[in-house]
């Protein structure tokens, strides 16, 4: 930080002139343009989707089962429950493991050791592995192979297996973002706590983590946002595309993105509209899910 301050002193000693002010305005306008682009795209996407799907939204839609015979009466109950369970389990998995890994890497690990650097490179690399490969991994190791504790019998895909596969997929996001959040907590906070006699863990638990909470929340939001829309890993793990009964933790399950994917590939237009309605429901769930994290983020955010 000291370097930055002398840096400022050396480089940035200029009075604001009218030239500066117009450059300021230009800068600010280009930023607003960026924001505009992002929001416009979102808007157009949503309108496109909403227009097609809004006609199907109703309580029946949420409480009926999918139907191929009579698409007009098709609903998403089984897939909806599947997604909710998956997200709940996924969050339960990624939050503790993600934060724990981040804490370890930032607070305890000696960066000069090769094994810690290996972990770091690993995590970063895992963020770019396509979701399909996680599906293959989940199938081979969680549903079938040596870790078949969560499958019942030979190679049966269960909700838990699906949630773990999704969790592994998005874990790098949580870890990387949480690391940054922890790193952003000023050292003075830690030093003060230690000086008062707290152990390292107490310092982390009581001072660092609460300070890093908003950043961790962002990581979890981004992670769950990714997980909720993933189709390929679930299909490969063995999730059902069509299920007319509700899922249980130890049985077959379906999920909203699979329904969407399924319907989008159908020739008849009505299925595309169903897909659009399902997307709207998915986004609403996402918003509700994220709002918890967003509330936490807003409450605990602080300017150092």
């Amino acid at each position: 930080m000291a370097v930055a301050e002398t840096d400022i002193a050396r480089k940035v000693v200029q009075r604001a002139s009218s030239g500066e002010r117009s450059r300021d305005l230009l800068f600010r306008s280009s930023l607003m343009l960026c924001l505009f682009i992002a929001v416009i795209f979102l808007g157009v996407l949503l309108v496109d989707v909403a227009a097609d799907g809004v006609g199907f939204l109703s309580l029946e839609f949420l409480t009926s089962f999918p139907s191929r015979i009579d698409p007009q009466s098709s609903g998403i109950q089984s897939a909806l429950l599947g997604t909710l369970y998956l997200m709940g389990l996924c969050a339960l998995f990624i939050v503790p493991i993600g934060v724990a890994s981040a804490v370890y890497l930032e607070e305890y690990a000696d960066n000069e050791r090769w094994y810690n650097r290996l972990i770091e490179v690993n995590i970063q690399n895992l963020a770019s592995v396509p979701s399909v490969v996680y599906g293959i991994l989940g199938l081979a190791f969680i549903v079938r192979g040596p870790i078949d504790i969560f499958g019942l019998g030979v190679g049966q895909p269960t909700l838990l297996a699906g949630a773990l596969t999704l969790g592994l997929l998005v874990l790098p996001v949580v870890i990387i973002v949480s690391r940054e959040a922890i790193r952003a907590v000023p050292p003075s906070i830690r030093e003060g706590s230690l000086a008062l006699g707290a152990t390292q863990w107490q310092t982390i638990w009581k001072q660092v983590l609460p300070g890093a909470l908003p950043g961790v929340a962002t990581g979890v939001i981004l992670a769950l946002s990714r997980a909720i829309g993933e189709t390929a890993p679930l299909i490969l793990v063995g999730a059902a595309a069509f299920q007319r009964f509700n899922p249980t933790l130890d049985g077959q399950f379906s999920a909203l993105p699979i329904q969407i994917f399924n319907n989008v590939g159908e020739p008849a237009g009505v299925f595309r509209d169903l897909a659009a309605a399902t997307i709207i429901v998915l986004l609403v769930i996402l918003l509700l899910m994220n709002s918890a994290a967003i509330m936490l983020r807003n409450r605990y955010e602080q300017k150092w």
Partner: protein
Amino acid sequence: MKLHRHTAVLVACSALAFGVTACGGDDDETARGTTESADTQNLSGSIRIDGSSTVQPVAEAASELFQETAPNVQITVGGAGTGDGFERFCRGEIVIADASRAIEADEYEKCKAKDIDPVEVQVGIDGLSVVANNSLEFPDNCISTENLKKLLAPKSKVANYKDLGEGFPDQAVAFFTPGTESGTYDYFTEAVLETDAEQRTNKVQTSADDNQIVTGITGTEGALGYVGFAFAEENKDKLKILSVDGGDGCIEPKIETIADGTYAPLSRPLFMYPTTKTAAQPEVKAFINFILENNQKVNESAGYVPLTDELKATATQNLESATPVEAPAAE
């Protein structure tokens, strides 16, 4: 046949009655009932179906209709692809494999290695429609398999439709077809181009999804391609569906012509494979029988073509006797 099943249920329940109470209450009902629905009402179990996404709609429609008569049988349908479907099937993870092609030698070996004997049951017929952008005016709105070959053969250099001969439009070619990973591609190249999965590559855009092929063709002047029958039907107003002349005159793809085989060679079978063991399980047998007996309704809902009586008879025979399929010829 009904009596057979009825007796079997009685015997099974009586046997169970000694140890388990489950069948106890139902004994009287089944003793009296002779209708099918009473039998199927008692069926329970879970059936996991996976495999071809082409056959998936058939399985879905069937499971939904079947649920009305057998509400206690839980059926789930997946669409991981024919290859993945057989892989799971040959590991004993799923009960029925959906397939848009017959089982191949590699897959068959894997099954035998795990002591699994697949039973081949044809459940429907799919047609391939040759479609074109509305701008293309072909004589009689028809194209012969010879011309399809000329256009799409692996080494074809035809750059303009007029090269096909008199009456064909002066229009640069553009093709949209399924990709090499698709069973539809395999079928077309074998049946029409008579090659081993080889097709022209220049000026051909491939796509994984029939809807995208439709988008491609409707959006490109002079475009030609092939998609599943249901997709062509659904987009009749946006594209031209060409009749195909396989040597016996121009035939339009319609449910009737595909079913009776006159729309040749562009119709292909859709299969479901149970194993010899699962075909003997009452709920599985009942389910597949249901598909065969209600073939018209199931295939209609799924957008495919129902079996002819002859094909239905063969399929029913395979199912009833749980005949293991013959080992496919190695490639």
